[in-house]
């Protein structure tokens, strides 16, 4: 396959006069799909999308010391003034925390200190987990826009909606440039502006056991799809599978969480949030999504 001059972007011809611009961001394969576009145009639009994905990743990654999150983590206990975009994300996190009665919590990332989902059988002890639970709770964070104080020992992580947010941001940028159909896909979280002339976008949902084989093929005209699930991240011990969806109130994996939840909504952020919160509802995931009046697909 032809690789273009920009080393981080690749251009591929797909069947049906479809061009795909591909790149890596946020530890996921990302692509922009353009029907009936020419190659220079595709590269130009693709770099707009990639730049935005990389920007969001650079700015909010919890793995980078030079990100806003890194900066906040280095100044725990201090009152900090944050920029407008970070402020909007914190507002959003606060509203999600409130809407879900604390089930969706951007401070629950500290649990990673005890849980490492590497496919092994290393289950933490009750004591390990119990030590971390007091460090969770968005209500303990002092957030009065634009000032934030993150208490000692706590962590912030926008990973729960960062990728979906990046999709929506890139979508907005591209929608200003292009009226013809396009689809942005960041690691399975995607959004399309309108259907291609051939009818609808065909989207495969991964089967949890297999990365290669699609379990379901969906048709999407426009709007967003986001998928949450634990297809690759789990622990197995004594025949029990521990999924990576952790209850912020107990510190333990949610019992009976579906393998994967896909939700269709108008924005990717909305779809992603609903999928994640559905997973957090465990055995009640279907019941929860039915109440939201959205299209969804659950694999158990």
């Amino acid at each position: 396959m032809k690789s273009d001059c920009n080393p981080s972007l690749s251009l591929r011809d797909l069947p049906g006069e479809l061009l795909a611009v591909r790149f890596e961001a946020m530890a996921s394969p990302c692509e922009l799909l353009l029907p009936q576009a020419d190659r220079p145009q595709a590269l130009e639009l693709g770099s707009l999308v990639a730049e935005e994905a990389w920007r969001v990743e650079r700015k909010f990654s919890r793995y980078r010391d030079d990100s806003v999150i890194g900066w906040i983590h280095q100044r725990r206990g201090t009152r900090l003034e944050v920029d407008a975009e970070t402020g909007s994300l914190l507002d959003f996190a606060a509203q999600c925390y409130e809407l879900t009665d604390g089930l969706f919590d951007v401070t629950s990332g500290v649990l990673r200190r005890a849980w490492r989902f590497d496919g092994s059988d290393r289950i933490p002890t009750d004591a390990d987990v119990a030590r971390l639970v007091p460090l969770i709770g968005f209500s303990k964070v002092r957030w009065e826009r634009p000032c934030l104080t993150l208490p000692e020992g706590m962590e912030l992580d926008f990973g729960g909606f960062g990728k979906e947010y990046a999709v929506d941001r890139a979508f907005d940028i591209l929608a200003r440039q292009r009226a013809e159909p396009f689809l942005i896909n960041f690691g399975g979280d995607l959004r399309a502006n309108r259907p291609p002339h051939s009818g609808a976008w065909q989207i495969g949902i991964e089967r949890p056991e297999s990365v290669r084989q699609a379990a379901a093929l969906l048709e999407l005209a426009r709007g967003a799809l986001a998928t949450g699930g634990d297809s690759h991240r789990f622990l197995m011990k004594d025949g029990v599978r521990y999924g990576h969806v952790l209850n912020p109130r107990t510190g333990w994996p949610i019992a009976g969480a579906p393998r994967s939840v896909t939700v269709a909504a108008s924005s990717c952020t909305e779809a992603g949030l609903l999928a994640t919160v559905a997973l957090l509802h465990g055995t009640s995931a279907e019941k929860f999504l039915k109440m939201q009046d959205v299209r969804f697909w659950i694999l158990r």
Partner: protein
Amino acid sequence: MQRLKSTPRAIRRGLIAASCALLGVARAKGQQLLDPALSGEGTPVADRWVIGLALSYYQEKGRIRVIEPIVSAVKDFQNGQVVNLHFSVDSLTGASPNGAVTSFLPQTFAGPSGKVTHNYTTPPGDLPVDPFYHDVRIAASGSWQLPLSRVTSWTVGAKVSYEHDFLSLTGDTSIARNFDQDNTTLSLGVYDENDTIRPIGGVPVPGSDTSFAEKERISNESRNDIGALIGVSQVMNRHWLAQVNVSLDRASGYMNDPYKIMSVVESEGITTGYLYERRPAQRTRASVYVDNRVGWQRQSVDLSLRYFGDDWGVRSYTARVRYRWWNADQGSYWQPSLRWYRQTAADFYHPWMSLAEVGSLSSASADSRLGAFHALTYGLEYGIDIGTPYVHPKWLTVRVQYYRQMVDARIPGPGALAALNLYPGLTAIQAQVTYRF
């Protein structure tokens, strides 16, 4: 103690509001975020006709009643085109002031009723009203907006309004362009309206005596009105949308109400006769309208001010405030509103004419709509989405308004009229139920 298990509940509306705020939907479609339910015509849903059915009921105390079914349809096509259609039928019955002043003696008038002329008598002390007023108005309008580029759109529209004695045809066109990443919209529009007035029994000669004017009637008259409008709307920030409109128009032709008369009153207060009104044959009007909408998560406030002035001497000032409280979980809102209005009288407005003035006034009208008054309108609206939010909304709205008009610049009547209340004012209620799906 925190609950360890969560009970599923509907969070989608709250989540939509939160993600709209996060993603700055206001930047592109400020108005829709600030006023997510319906700002008049509603949010068009792409590729689907949004149909509105409404029934409006209007009742003035002791006077006119209007019942009006309305059908509207909007479609936002995938290619960016928007088509708007509107159809309504008003049925108007009741009593309408004929322009004559109240007297301490009974007064007898001849007025049109259906296609014939009838007589009616107003008792002493009452404002003369034509009790047989009846009219049916059919109105249809349509507009077509088409994108010329990503930031420019062009709209053409037409409107027809028909009554058995009146026909109005209007054509309009406008162009709108977005600037500054869609934060600013500038629009320019022009329109041309042509009216034909064909009163029952013919058009009376303006200023003529109602007793002797029959022979000089002609069958119809016409009027032309051309106007232009410039508008700027500006997203000030995520929560604030501002809009300024300036309009100018000029009408010429037959400007009278052919059924409105005025009393000739001598110094003792006795009405000695009635003349048909006579208004200038031209009118130039200008207005400035400023609207500010400020929206938060669950609330929005809309404050608008309007100034209007014309070369007839009418100046009017309108201030309206609307507050919307939006219950995101239930998909419903409450919207109380208050409107204050005040106008000055036209230079040629005279509640009656003295004997000395007959023949000396080039223009004269006793139509109370051209007099000085102020008015307050109190409104309450409730809307609820009984469909699927944002995907297939179905809005049911109920609006109730109470209107109270008080006459200003009350010139005391001469002689015996001084003891009578010549300016009773007006109160009215309006109720409307709308279903949009």
